[in-house]
C-alpha cells in the first residue's frame, strides 16, 4: 500500500516538472533554451563536422565502394587522400562562393556555420554557431548565397536559433519581381512556402521570382526568396494563393550569413 502511494507521489512529482516548464511564460523558457543551446554547442559542432564529412564522402559516387573492393593498400591510401582533397575542395568552393556573395552585399553580414537542425519534423529550425557575443540579435534575417534562409528567433551567448522560410511560424513581406505585386510569404511546414493574401486578379505567374519587399523594416529589400511553382484559388475563394520553391537549399545548409542591423 505504502509502496503504491510512494510510487504515485514520485510519478506526480515527475509530472510537475514538464507541466511547470510547459506553462511557464516564453520570457523564462526562451532564456533557458538559449542558455542550454549555448552550453551544448561544443559537442554539436564536433558531431556536426563529422556528419558533414560523412555526407561529403558519400556524395562523390562510389568512393566507399571502390575502397571496399580494392585490395591494394596503395590505391586505398591514394583514394583516401583524394577524398580528403575533394572534401577540402568542396569546403573551399562553398566558402569562396559565400565570400564573393558577401562582397557583393551592401549591408553588414556575419558568416556562421549551421551546427544542428530541429530534432523533430514539425518545425523547421537551425542552430548556428554565432550568438549575442558576436553582435547578432533576435529577429535578424539569415541568408545563403542562393537567397533568404530564415529569421533568428532565439539568441544565446554563443549560439542562435533561426526559423527557416518553410517553418509555419515564418512570415515576411514580399513582392513579385516582374509584376511588383505585393504579398506575404509564409511557411507551410512543407518544403515550399505559401504566398498569401494575393488579390484574385493579381498578376502572378509560374516561374516568377519572389523577393523581399523591405516593408516592415526588418528585412532588407530585394533578397531572393524563391520561384513561384503553382498558383491556385484560396480555399475561401476570395483571394489566390501560390506556392514558392525557396531559392536556398534549406535541407543542405552548412554556411549562412546573418544580416546585421
Amino acid at each position, binding site marked *: 500500500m505504502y509502496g503504491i502511494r510512494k510510487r504515485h507521489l514520485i510519478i506526480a512529482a515527475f509530472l510537475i516538472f*514538464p507541466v511547470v516548464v510547459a506553462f511557464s511564460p516564453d520570457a523564462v523558457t526562451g532564456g533557458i533554451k538559449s542558455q542550454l543551446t549555448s552550453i551544448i554547442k561544443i559537442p554539436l559542432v564536433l558531431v556536426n563536422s563529422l556528419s558533414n564529412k560523412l555526407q561529403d564522402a558519400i556524395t562523390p559516387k562510389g568512393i566507399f565502394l571502390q575502397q571496399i573492393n580494392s585490395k591494394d593498400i596503395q590505391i586505398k591510401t591514394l583514394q583516401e587522400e583524394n577524398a580528403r582533397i575533394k572534401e577540402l575542395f568542396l569546403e573551399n568552393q562553398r566558402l569562396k562562393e559565400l565570400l564573393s556573395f558577401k562582397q557583393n552585399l551592401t549591408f553588414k553580414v556575419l558568416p556562421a556555420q549551421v551546427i544542428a537542425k530541429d530534432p523533430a*519534423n*514539425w518545425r523547421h529550425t537551425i542552430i548556428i554557431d554565432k550568438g549575442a557575443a558576436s553582435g547578432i540579435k533576435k529577429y535578424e534575417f539569415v541568408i545563403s548565397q542562393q537567397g533568404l534562409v530564415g529569421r533568428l528567433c532565439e539568441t544565446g551567448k554563443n549560439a542562435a536559433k533561426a526559423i527557416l522560410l518553410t517553418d509555419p511560424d515564418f512570415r515576411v513581406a514580399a513582392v513579385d519581381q516582374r509584376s511588383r505585386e505585393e504579398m506575404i510569404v509564409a511557411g507551410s511546414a512543407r518544403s515550399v512556402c505559401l504566398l498569401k493574401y494575393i488579390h484574385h486578379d493579381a498578376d502572378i505567374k509560374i516561374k516568377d521570382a519572389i523577393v523581399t519587399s523591405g516593408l516592415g523594416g526588418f528585412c532588407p529589400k530585394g533578397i531572393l526568396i524563391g520561384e513561384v511553382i503553382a498558383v491556385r484559388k484560396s480555399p475561401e475563394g476570395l483571394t489566390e494563393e501560390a506556392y514558392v520553391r525557396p531559392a536556398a537549399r534549406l535541407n543542405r545548409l552548412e554556411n549562412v550569413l546573418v544580416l546585421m542591423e
Partner: protein
Amino acid sequence: MLYLVTILTAVCQLTLVNTVAIGNIRPDLLLILVVFVAMKKGLMKAALAGILAGFIEDIFSTGAFINTLAFPVYGILVSLLKEKFYFIKEKLSVELLIVFAVCIVDSIVHIIYFSNWDYPPSILALAVFIAVPTVLYTSFASVLLNLCGLKYFL
C-alpha cells in the same frame, strides 16, 4: 547509463540523422528510445527518459514545450499497457506496432497544437506531408534500431 544513451541519441538526432533525411523527414529517435525504455525498464525510468528526451527535443526546437509534457506520458502509458496486457512483450513486431501507435498519437498531439494557432497551417498538409511520412519512417527506424540492439544499451 540510461541518461547517457538519451543524451547521445539526442546528439545523433540533432546532427547525424540529417544525413538520412528523406526530403525533410527524419525518424524520431528520441520517441523510439522512450518506447524502448518503457518496454524494457518500466514506468519510472520511462517517465524519466520521457521527460529528458522531450525536454531536449523542445530546447532545440522552437515554440511550446509540448514534447516535455507528451513524451513522459507516452512512456508511462506504454509501460502501463505492458503491465496490463500479457501480449505486449519485447518482440520485434509488437514493438513496431507500439512505436507506430505512439507516433500516430504524437502526430495528433502536434496537429492539435498547430490547429490552435492564430494562423494555423493547413491541417491536411500537416497530416499528409509530415505526420504520415514521420510515422512510417520512425516505425521503420525502430525496426532497424531494434535489430541493431539499441535496447541492450539501456
